[in-house]
């Protein structure tokens, strides 16, 4: 698999405090990589480093296998970015905005119609941006970011402030884009979103990467060493994993006393709290 993003020992400081502290990870082609962490953990700063809005103090960054300092302008045409500080032209309609960005990107204007349909804004394409709701603006921004079929897509909290129905639509669209070959780097503090979309996750806390892996790997790695059995008498029994417990559970099963048997895997939110002791 081709490497899309690579960071090695990347540091960035504002004043005396490290904002990003010896950060290392890589993202391969075709992945949806989730970058999780609480507010102020350094997620957006990392995204700004990767998109050259900020310069690192030390360390190596490669994009598409090339040193970020030697990357050519044409390579940046293969990138799409949706950041929390993007805006669209308020006196222009959604469609005119997208046509303008299509001209900037050198994309066929027919793509505007396709992408408007994908984000479900085709019927409202003539609406001026200043008259759009937050959800419509966010979808229009997403449309702008994916208009040119980027090979690598950076999304900074793409569903922040959206209603559940729109979030579902955005998730569907992201999965479709990924299926079409777009690698996605997604920052979020929505654990459910990360669990649903991401093949791999990195958890960032105070500029450090404190855990990395697939959601399943992380859950298993932080699973409790216990099994919970609910009996017919509505009694919760906790067994420590091991041969001794296996015999006891078998006896309960044979006696027809078991209603449910669960191993205790934490969700991503619990894992984060376990790792950092911080709240979201």
């Amino acid at each position, binding site marked *: 698999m081709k490497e899309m993003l690579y960071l090695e020992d990347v540091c960035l400081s504002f004043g005396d405090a490290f904002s990003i502290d010896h950060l290392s990870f890589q993202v391969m082609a075709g992945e949806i990589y989730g970058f999780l962490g609480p507010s102020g953990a350094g997620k957006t700063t990392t995204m700004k480093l990767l998109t050259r809005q900020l310069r690192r103090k030390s360390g190596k960054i490669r994009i598409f296998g090339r040193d970020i300092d030697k990357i050519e*302008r044409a390579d940046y045409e293969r990138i799409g970015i949706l950041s929390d*500080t993007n*805006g669209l032209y308020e006196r222009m309609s959604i469609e005119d905005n997208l046509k303008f960005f299509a001209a900037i990107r050198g994309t066929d204007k027919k793509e505007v119609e396709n992408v408007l349909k994908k984000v479900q804004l085709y019927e409202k394409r003539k609406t001026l941006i200043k008259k759009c709701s937050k959800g419509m603006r966010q979808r229009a921004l997403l449309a702008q970011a994916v208009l040119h079929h980027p090979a690598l897509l950076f999304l900074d909290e793409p569903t922040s402030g959206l209603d559940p129905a729109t979030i579902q639509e955005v998730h569907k669209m992201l999965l479709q884009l990924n299926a079409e070959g777009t690698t996605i780097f997604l920052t979020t503090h929505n654990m459910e979103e990360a669990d649903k979309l991401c093949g791999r996750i990195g958890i960032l806390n105070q500029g450090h990467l404190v855990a990395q892996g697939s959601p399943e790997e992380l859950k298993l790695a932080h699973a409790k060493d216990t099994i919970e059995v609910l009996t017919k008498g509505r009694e919760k029994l906790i067994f420590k994993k091991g041969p001794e417990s296996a015999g006891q559970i078998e006896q309960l099963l044979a006696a027809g006393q078991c209603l449910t048997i669960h191993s205790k895997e934490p969700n991503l939110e619990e894992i984060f709290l376990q790792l950092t002791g911080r709240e979201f």
Partner: protein
Amino acid sequence: MNISARKLQALFKKDFTDYFKNPALVVCSLIPLLFVVLYRFINIPNLQGELDDFLLSLGMVVNSSMCALIIPATSIAEEKEKFTLRTLILSNVSAIEFFLAKILVTTVIVMLGNVLIFFVSGSPVKALPVYILCSFMGNVCAVMLSAVIGIMSRDQASSSALQVPVMLLFVLPPVFASAGKVLELLSEVTPYGAMLRLYYGLSEGGIPAEKMIFAAGVITTWILASLLIFASLYKQKGTDN
């Protein structure tokens, strides 16, 4: 420096059409023209025989100051305020393409206004090429300085606060040059005063060659100075660092 003609064309088209959708900027461009039209039909006794020159000077200075100094600064500040500048930069538009489009659009709008003012003022058509040349030179530095104000400003309100002193410095000395020695001196060393002197010297004569060379030198110095300030600020503000 890498400039994409496609991106520059798209930015120019967007900025030009957006100008007509912004009532504040359209009114800004119409005021000088309306002034000249109004004065054309008012009988001003003291200006008999000099009305054409008065209207041309007034129109050119007011149009140049209002449009050249306001449009780029306001437009750049608005792009920063509404976060569209960041969307452009993240869409691989270089800062030089962004600023060049703003400067070109403003220059076209200012020059169109100046040409209309020239015809309304009743000036002789044979002076038009010299007029276009002089008003172009006088406006280049104003447009660049306005772009500098746009870079320095966080939003449209802070941009307005910076525009006013520059506008006063550029407009008042040539208009009130006869009121005192300080204003006369300021008029000689600011671009619009030099622009008027150069125009009347070239089109009507009667101004000594050394004064015309000095006026051309003043405009060139302002253009170079504004370019230097622009380049230095552009380098400093290139990233979030």
